[in-house]
């Protein structure tokens, strides 16, 4: 079961990184980064479940809360509002 999850997550990371490298405009790469952080949030929860450590979930919580602020700042910069 864990092999299927790992395979899908690796494929997802692969496609996101490919778009981040190829993307013609800046927004494409920012979308890829946003996608990468969301995949990481889910993946960290899954890894914490595999390791069976309750306290590791805190890292994922902070990830889910803070990762959008960086993307929001870049978006505000593109908008010209910063």
């Amino acid at each position, binding site marked *: 079961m864990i092999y299927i999850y790992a395979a899908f997550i690796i494929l997802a990371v692969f496609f996101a990184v490919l778009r981040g490298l190829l993307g013609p405009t800046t927004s494409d790469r920012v979308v890829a980064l946003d996608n990468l952080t969301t995949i990481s949030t889910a993946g960290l929860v899954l890894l914490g479940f595999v390791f069976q450590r309750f*306290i*590791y979930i*805190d*890292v994922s919580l*902070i990830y889910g*809360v803070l990762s959008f602020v960086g993307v*929001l700042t870049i978006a505000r910069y593109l908008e010209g*509002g910063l």
Partner: protein
Amino acid sequence: MRKVIAILLLIIIGYYSIDTILKIPFGEGVKGVGKHYLESTIKETGAVNSVTAIVVSYRGFDTLGEVTVLFLAATGLGAILYDKKGKKRSLQNASLIVKTSSKIIYPLIALLGAYVFVHGHLTPGGGFQGGAIIATGVLLMFISYRSFETNHKALSIIESLAGMTFVTIGFAGLIYGTSFLQNILPFGIPGELFSAGIIPLIYVAVGFKVGAELTALLDNLLKTIK
């Protein structure tokens, strides 16, 4: 010619670093100082998280130095960017969706930061991380609202009080115990919130100090006219 020299240097450095890495015994059990720390942190300091125990209890004086370095960095940045006229941030307002949701999510981020530094001796994290999280929450309000302001005087008062608390706890250890930052409070039961002696007090002080410093730094950075 220069490229040949560079490649030769790279080969030499690479050889020695690989040699060093191969000599480290990965995958074996913990030994030496690490074993001592892992076995005796709960007995000696009462903290469940041994990283916190090392950072605050065994190496508490180093942490005081790190806090001082951060304070100096924030002060230096403020001195470089000092400008009498630059009182306003040159922001446009964000859209309604961003404004409303950042108003909702900002107290939650502040609460999360407080949770991280209060539970420093039980879960991963501590004062520095909690302070950084609180500063990020304030920055969310900065980039969403043009008119959101922080009180600079209150920030410096919080910062000074937190620093003084740290040093006072250290001197209390020197007076009632044997050395600077000696633990003088009872340990309590390991794993509970009120345990581990002075470690939570120090981490609360560090959290307030780092949060206030980083907030003031970001405010200075956003406010200057280019």
